[in-house]
């Protein structure tokens, strides 16, 4: 053991520096976006902004706050992340609970049907045409209903229900409780942790959702935040003018873009400490099962 000590020490030092470097590469871009969002236009263009704002200004945020379409998109995303998540939780748990119970005969077939949707999904166009036929296109519902259950989250939740001690349920039955009573007063109170985890999973997905809005929403009034942000980033100055109630002719777009990016990432960054704990747990439950 003593033989490798010198080599080990060199390696340890290298490892600390190397992982620190990886950490820096991860965090510096985010800090840089933050710094640029508070910096004046010329400071950004002349490369004066690194980790701290230069030529400090709030004008980029003034633009964001005074832009009605950004606010509207923000509120739509808040609605999706709350109402959409409630739908997700209700649908996922009401399927995961019965399929976790040994009394449910025929669960094998249903589980296989669900598993198959993970490895084989319908092509985009039939999905689009079917949504159109259901009159879901260009409604807020198309961002909530077709994704109501994620098969992966379903399996995570089912394995949670399976891990509940069966004695609890049996004792409830012994006391003469019906299925409904068992579910309501024995199982549901125990599901708080898994509901919180799954709720966060789904809420993050809703908040970050961009693709299905691009596919299925044409009405600009229904754009969620990510779509609006992308429009501004990809630099249509038209998109910037729209809804702005302050004069932006004196501003360069770079700082505005950074402010918009930061505002849209802010909720994620604020809840991240909570997310991290729950996500790690959820991911590991899921991986053990699969």
């Amino acid at each position, binding site marked *: 053991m003593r033989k490798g000590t010198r080599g080990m020490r060199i390696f340890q030092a290298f490892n*600390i520096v190397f992982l620190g470097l990886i950490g820096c590469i991860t965090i510096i871009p985010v800090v*840089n976006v933050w710094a640029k969002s508070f910096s004046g236009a010329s400071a950004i263009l002349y490369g004066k902004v690194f980790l701290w704002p230069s030529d400090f200004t709030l004008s980029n945020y003034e633009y964001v706050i005074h832009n009605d379409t950004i606010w509207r998109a923000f509120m739509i995303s808040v609605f999706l992340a709350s109402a959409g998540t409630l739908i997700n939780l209700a649908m996922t748990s009401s399927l995961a609970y*019965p399929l976790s119970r040994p009394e449910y005969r025929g669960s094998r077939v249903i589980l296989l049907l669900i598993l198959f949707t993970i490895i084989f999904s319908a092509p*985009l166009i039939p999905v689009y045409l079917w949504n159109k036929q259901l009159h879901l296109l260009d409604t807020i519902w198309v961002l909530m209903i077709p994704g109501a259950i994620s098969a992966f989250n379903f399996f995570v939740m089912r394995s949670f229900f399976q891990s509940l001690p069966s004695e609890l349920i049996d004792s409830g039955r012994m006391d003469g409780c019906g299925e409904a009573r068992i579910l309501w007063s024995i199982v549901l109170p125990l599901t708080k942790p898994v509901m919180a985890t799954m709720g966060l999973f789904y809420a993050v997905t809703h908040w970050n959702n961009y693709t299905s809005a*691009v596919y299925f929403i044409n009405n600009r009034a229904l754009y969620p935040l990510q779509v609006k942000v992308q429009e501004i*980033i990809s630099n249509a100055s038209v998109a910037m003018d729209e809804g702005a109630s302050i004069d932006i002719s004196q501003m360069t777009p770079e700082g505005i873009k950074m402010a918009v990016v930061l505002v849209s990432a802010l909720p994620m960054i604020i809840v991240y400490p909570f997310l991290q704990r729950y996500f790690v747990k959820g991911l590991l439950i899921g991986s053990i099962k699969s």
Partner: protein
Amino acid sequence: MNDRSATAVRPPARQFQEMSLFRYIAKHKMLYLLSVPGIVYFLVFKYIPMAGGVIAFQNYNIFKGITGSEWVGLEQFQRMFQYADFLRILKNTLLIAFYDLLFAFPAPIIAALLLNELRHVLYKRVVQTVIYMPHFLSWVIIGGISLAVLGIDQGLVNHFLDWLGFERLFFLGDAEYIRGVLVGAGVWRDTGWGTIIYLAAIAGINPDLYEAAEVDGANRWKQTLSITLPSMMPTIVILFLLQVGNFLDFGFERVFVFLNTLNISNGDILDTYIYRMGLLNQQFSYTTAVGMFKSVVGLLLLAVGNTISRKATGESLY
């Protein structure tokens, strides 16, 4: 004789079973009722669109619908391979997927091994907290961050190059760089997150193994090669198979947010092609054929990979 006696016996038995099945469901009607919305959901939103895939074999006309449209057999699939456009985009998709497998797949394995060697617990926690974070940012936000880092006028990297006296590089608007940017952004976002599952595998290794190896005189490097890596193998193989199954599914969003008219020649992949040709140009049947091609190839890759892996390593998904 045997056959006949079997059939003679079966009907009453089956009748009895059906009766009891009916009674069984009635007895547990709460459970079955509860599961109805979820089952209906999967049938309506997953299986009906799958069946709608038949328009790949038609010349679908939106006014005539599936029942009224003309059947054309495999014509749409033949068209696919006659288009130079399609072949170029297929090449892009394969190249990007290959780079992704080459760089993004091993990155979290190496990072997990290095993290595992960190002795300082607090430092380890800080590094982990930092590198998990980008996973929660949407691709749109990452596209925005890439402007701050790689942008031609204001990007950090270009200011640095400028400062060193080099030419600025048009990372986001040059076809030459787009594949690297796409794969690199993925490595930046998901390497940290990917370590979680490997670290869990490492944490599950029996410490006695290391002790025994130490007694035998194996150093850390040898221990890593002969204990840690083999113990991670089942996890590595399973994640590898999943990635192979998703080989053509690099993802619409993560490419779309980086695409522009300058880099589309090398950055366009099947998903962005399907969106453009299908939804914007309304070539419904043709792009459904492209989508079916993508899904079926994915399924085949998964099956083939699984069989090979079961023979070679004994590990498999099913």
